[in-house]
């Protein structure tokens, strides 16, 4: 027998491929280190994770300024989270390195940071404690909350949202996987088409 149809010869890998596609259809997990960070007051907080397979625990985190000067370094906790003090006006590049070729960077815009962390706001009025329930005053007197505190509170609230958006963007989606397989089939189909045309032309004369 000279040649059997290709289809039957491909049965093995085809079955394997089908099994793997099915396996991937569940919680699709993946392979890429990512880091997300945001400035909260005078510190930069964030987390590092492998897309799909969970937090990157105990990996090195460094903060560098625009000139690549090392500002701070530390390690992530068991949940992949970290918090390092930072200040200044320039952008800060957060780098996590799992030390095996997995490296991820994230830039925190300088405008998010508190420009002068070292000097506590001297003239800041001490916030008046909010009136407790017994005080019948209508909220006519709003205690002067320092702007910086509001900013920190807001930053804390929106940080998880921003992290979630970032994670969603890099999540593995089954339609992307199927699309990738489609591209591969298409590319090889095109190659087969070109090769067969060339072979046919060679045969004709």
């Amino acid at each position, binding site marked *: 027998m000279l040649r059997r149809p290709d289809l039957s010869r491909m*049965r*093995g890998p085809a079955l394997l491929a089908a099994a793997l596609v099915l396996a991937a259809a569940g919680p699709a997990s993946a*392979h890429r280190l990512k880091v997300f960070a945001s400035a909260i007051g005078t510190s930069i907080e964030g987390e590092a994770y492998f897309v799909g397979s969970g937090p990157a625990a105990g990996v090195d985190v460094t903060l560098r300024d625009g000139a690549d000067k090392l500002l701070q370094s530390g390690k992530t906790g068991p949940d992949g989270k970290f918090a390092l003090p930072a200040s200044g006006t320039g952008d800060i590049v957060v780098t996590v390195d799992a030390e*095996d*070729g997995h490296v991820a960077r994230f830039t925190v815009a300088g405008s998010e940071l508190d420009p002068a962390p070292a000097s506590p706001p001297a003239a800041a009025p001490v916030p008046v404690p909010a009136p407790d329930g017994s005080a019948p005053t209508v909220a006519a007197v709003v205690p002067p909350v320092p702007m910086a505190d509001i900013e920190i509170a807001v930053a804390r609230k929106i940080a998880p949202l921003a992290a979630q958006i970032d994670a969603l963007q890099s999540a593995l989606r089954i339609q992307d996987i199927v699309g990738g397989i489609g591209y*591969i089939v298409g590319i090889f189909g095109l190659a*087969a088409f070109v090769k067969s045309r060339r*072979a046919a032309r060679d045969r004709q004369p």
Partner: protein
Amino acid sequence: MAHIPDGVLSVPVLVAGGVVTAAALGYALKTLDEDRLPRVAVLAALFFVASLISVAVGPTSVHLLLSGLMGLIIGWAAVPAVFVGLVMQAVFFGFGGITTLGVNTMNIALPGVLWAMLFAPLLVNATPRRAAWVGAAVAALSVATTAVMVALVLTLSDSSYTLSARIVLLSYGPLLVGEAVITGFACGFLARVSPEMLAARAMRRGGKIAASS
């Protein structure tokens, strides 16, 4: 690990990887027989999907490479298969990087091709049991070689990566076992249902008569 991202490797290493991959790609495409294209496509898709699924191991995470299996079944065509898979992963998911495509393809595909080439004669007329053991050995050796190459490439780029090389080697241990088991079963299965798939390359080298018998 095997998907080294952009901005980690030094330029000479990137260029060297690119040159090696380009040469291997050129050779593979020249010798690629159009009848085998569908098989290459299936294995490229298999690699694309299999290396998306990863498991956390210690401070890092690993995924299957299947380079040994690819080398055994499609030989040099594993290089374009891996290359296409990596391009798709880089474009769709940002795994690895565009500049590191050459180095990554070299690290993943070449060990599989070379070890499979070395072991291919053992697969001619092999019983399923022997095919399984040969497949497992090729897979394990390919993964180990990939690990060494990744470590080497990182160390060549930046000597401060010496310590990380140790982590790479540690995290490849479980992968090596998993890959050997999977490739072993796959080869045992192939040897039973379509033995010519595994031995085709060795037979072709043996001459036309063997290939057409």
